[in-house]
């Protein structure tokens, strides 16, 4: 089934399916038969794919559609309706901008825009180097710290547009330090 789908893609799209994605798709092919082939199972199936693999690859929607015997457009319509589904692999540093009521009032929307401009990606996307992904979330439960942003697991409180650069720099510095540490360790081991 997978190879059939891949054959139907045009050359550039096929080239975009890297080994990692291919393996994920292969795994989904094996997982699908465990679910009843009913349209009512659509959401549980999509949720389970996302939970296991972090996102919904494009071709996975085709496979799910033919498994529950509905059209791709229908599956896509449902998957895009819910905010919880993402269509890009998550980055190593997922950035979640809170847009719950309190954060929204305190300018969360502006922060999201700032991150979008700084990272040159849009909300819901992942940067080309897979380092960052940007998401909007509805309330993370710390309204007293509004506006809040979650970077990885860490909550950044009272974020202002001027702090956006600092947050990214901090991640970059940590990455750089880890890389140097690695080089040093490698040298010591040799």
């Amino acid at each position, binding site marked *: 089934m997978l190879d059939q*789908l891949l054959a139907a893609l045009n050359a550039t799209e096929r080239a975009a399916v890297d080994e990692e994605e291919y393996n994920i798709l292969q795994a989904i092919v094996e997982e699908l038969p465990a679910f009843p082939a009913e349209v009512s199972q659509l959401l549980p199936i999509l949720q389970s794919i996302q939970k296991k693999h972090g996102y919904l690859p494009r071709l996975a*929607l*085709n496979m799910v559609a033919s498994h529950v015997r*509905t059209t791709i*457009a*229908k599956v*896509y319509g449902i998957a*895009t309706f819910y905010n919880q589904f993402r269509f890009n692999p998550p980055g190593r540093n997922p950035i979640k901008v809170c847009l719950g009521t309190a954060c929204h009032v305190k300018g969360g929307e502006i922060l999201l825009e700032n991150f979008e401009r700084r990272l040159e990606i849009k909300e819901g996307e992942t940067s080309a180097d897979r380092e960052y992904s940007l998401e909007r979330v509805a309330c993370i439960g710390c309204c007293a710290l509004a506006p809040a942003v979650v970077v990885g697991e860490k909550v950044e409180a009272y974020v202002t547009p001027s702090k956006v650069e600092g947050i990214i720099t901090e991640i970059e510095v940590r990455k750089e330090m880890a890389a140097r540490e690695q080089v040093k360790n490698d040298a010591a081991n040799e």
Partner: protein
Amino acid sequence: MSDNLVTITVDEQKITAPAGAFLLPVCLENDIYIPHLCFLEGMDDPPASCRLCLVEIAGESGPVASCRYRVREGLEVKTNSDEILRLRQLAFRLLVSTNDGSCRTCIANHSCDLQKIAKYLHQPLKTKRLRHIDRDYPALIDNHPFLVYEPKKCVLCGRCVYVCGQLEKGYKLDFAQRGMDSIVSLFGSELDPASLECETCLACAGVCPVGAMSSKKKWRSFIAELGLN
């Protein structure tokens, strides 16, 4: 049918109609024009989403959408009061505030329902009274082998989604996203062998009230013609 005909009054005009029919098509058959975008003859459950077919009915607490109001004996309907006109104008302005309104280069120019309704409601196709929202979509989506879709012209009436859903292997297109980002999507159609059936159908393009969904063949020759002139 003859024994359950009822008489209703629309704008002081007496009309006989089958009981239980929807009011909108009854009026249209009797040459009383009511603007509408989302309604299609034969719908069991009209979406009533365009809000252009609002009318006043004696005894109702507010204006009602005539496309899903059922006819019964003695109904008194007003389709042209000032209040109704204002509501329809507002609904129309909201619709065009996200529309791109480039009529001269549109395949539906002169056959467009939106143009017809604009004239009827005395409203410009580019409203100045509401902020224009340019929806973040490409001007053209042409992944389907036989269809082209122009999101910025789409009024999201849902006619195409409805007619496609009526077909045996329907819903090759469907709504995607939500809220302001809503769009009719032909996602995955380039990968779906079933898309080949669309060549002889094209029902979705046929019911589009504007120029958003069109046959790729027709669209190509239209664009070629534009280039010549």
